[in-house]
């Protein structure tokens, strides 16, 4: 580094590396890492899904495509509102900018609300990301059979305990004086006992003898699982992609049963579904926090940069969902 003119004085002119504010540069660098993060998740999902010997379709897992599509529209709308907020802030219209940010916040909240509704419907069907709550089994094997037996044992023991309590109450009443009131109470107890006995008989009949048979074949166990949790194969659908008959499983008919069931590939499905939508939902949540913080500020021209950065992040969250929706709901 010699100075050709021999002045010995080098005038350094400092320039930013990229002609954008530091905040925006940081945000774009952050988004680059986020691209890698979600690319890894999506890549792993693709390997697991397409390499799986079996993969349950959305209908088997109670995943409603229309709800996913609705959520996509909600996020697209929220992307528009945030871009309009930036526009308003750049035009120094602080109140309008705040209004658009509030609208974005509400739409983001709606997205999360729909997500919570979806998660709850999974949970109510016994689909959880992992043990101990998950009631899904991979194969109709001895583990599944013993899980069904164990669940039935717990249920029957509960009913038997209730009946024993009723019986002891009845004995006490019978030992005392037989007034009209006592007679009525005894009749009530008899009725309750009969309801419980009928219930147990109904369960026993609905589940059938297979559950108690230690030597039941895999085929018989699969038939049992289908009665507990009906699954429709792809070829059972008609051309419009709808299940021809929406049969009700035992778990739907008697919600208190909560029996285990078999969905081949179902656990891997649940793991990937909850991981990907969960991480995405966390990003949505972070966005909502950012919007709340923005709502406390005066969003005039000086703050347009902040609105822009939050907006960039929000569009990225939208972008991820654009890929997650078809991959999870429509593939």
């Amino acid at each position, binding site marked *: 580094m010699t100075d050709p003119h021999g002045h010995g004085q080098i005038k350094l002119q400092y320039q930013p590396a990229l002609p954008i504010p530091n905040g925006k540069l940081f945000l774009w660098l952050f988004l*680059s890492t986020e691209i890698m993060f979600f690319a890894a998740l999506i890549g792993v999902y693709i390997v697991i899904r397409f390499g799986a010997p079996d993969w349950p379709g959305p209908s088997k897992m109670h995943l409603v495509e229309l709800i996913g599509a609705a959520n996509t529209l909600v996020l697209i709308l929220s992307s528009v509102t945030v871009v309009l907020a930036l*526009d308003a802030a750049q035009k120094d219209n602080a109140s309008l900018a705040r209004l658009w940010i509030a609208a974005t916040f509400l739409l983001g909240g709606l997205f999360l609300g729909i997500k919570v509704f979806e998660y709850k419907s999974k949970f109510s069907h016994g689909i959880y990301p992992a043990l101990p709550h998950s009631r899904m089994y991979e194969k109709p094997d001895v583990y599944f059979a013993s899980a069904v037996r164990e669940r039935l044992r717990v249920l029957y023991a509960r009913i038997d305990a209730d009946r024993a309590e009723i019986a002891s109450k009845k004995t006490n009443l019978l030992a005392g004086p037989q007034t009209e009131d006592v007679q009525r109470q005894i009749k009530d107890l008899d009725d309750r006992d009969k309801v419980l006995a009928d219930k147990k008989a109904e369960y026993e009949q609905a589940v059938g003898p297979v559950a108690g048979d230690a030597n039941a074949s895999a085929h018989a166990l699969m038939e049992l699982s289908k009665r507990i949790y009906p699954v429709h194969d792809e070829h059972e659908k008609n051309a419009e992609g709808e299940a021809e008959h929406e049969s009700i499983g035992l778990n739907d008919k008697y919600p208190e049963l909560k029996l285990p069931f078999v969905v081949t590939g179902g656990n891997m499905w649940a793991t990937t579904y909850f991981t990907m939508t969960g991480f995405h939902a966390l990003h949505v949540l972070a966005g909502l926090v950012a919007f709340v913080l923005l709502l406390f500020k005066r969003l005039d021209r000086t703050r347009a940069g902040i609105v822009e950065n939050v907006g960039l992040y929000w569009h990225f969250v939208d972008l991820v969902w654009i890929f997650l929706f078809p991959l999870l709901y429509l593939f």
Partner: protein
Amino acid sequence: MTEPHDTHGAGEHAHAGHGTTKQYLAVCAALMILTFVSFFTFRLLHNTQVQMTWAVMMAVSCVKALLVMLFFMHLKWEASWKYVLTIPATIMAIFLMIALIPDIKWRFETIAGGRTPSEERKVHMGYEHEPGTPAETEQGGGH
């Protein structure tokens, strides 16, 4: 860069490049229409031509992603710095995907929890037997 009036330094280009409200609404409408395209592709084709559905939906998603990045994230109007930040990340993401492809075939053929995929699943995946591998029944099943 291309616009003659955009010669200010950093941070002073707040008004230099962004779309109009009309443009944003048009992009929003396009995104919604594209969402319906994916949805109805699924409804109409998923049972008969699965691989076709996958291709259509991925193409639609890429178009949607481009629309969001170009218009909502203002990349259409930004100077060339955008390439410095977006292209390396995109290349790495794409190479990650490509690097994972052999794993799909490997998983499908070998581990898979000791199970072999059903013939139906193989057809669904568009999987073809290699000449060397033993196959109980030929695909298409004509005997």
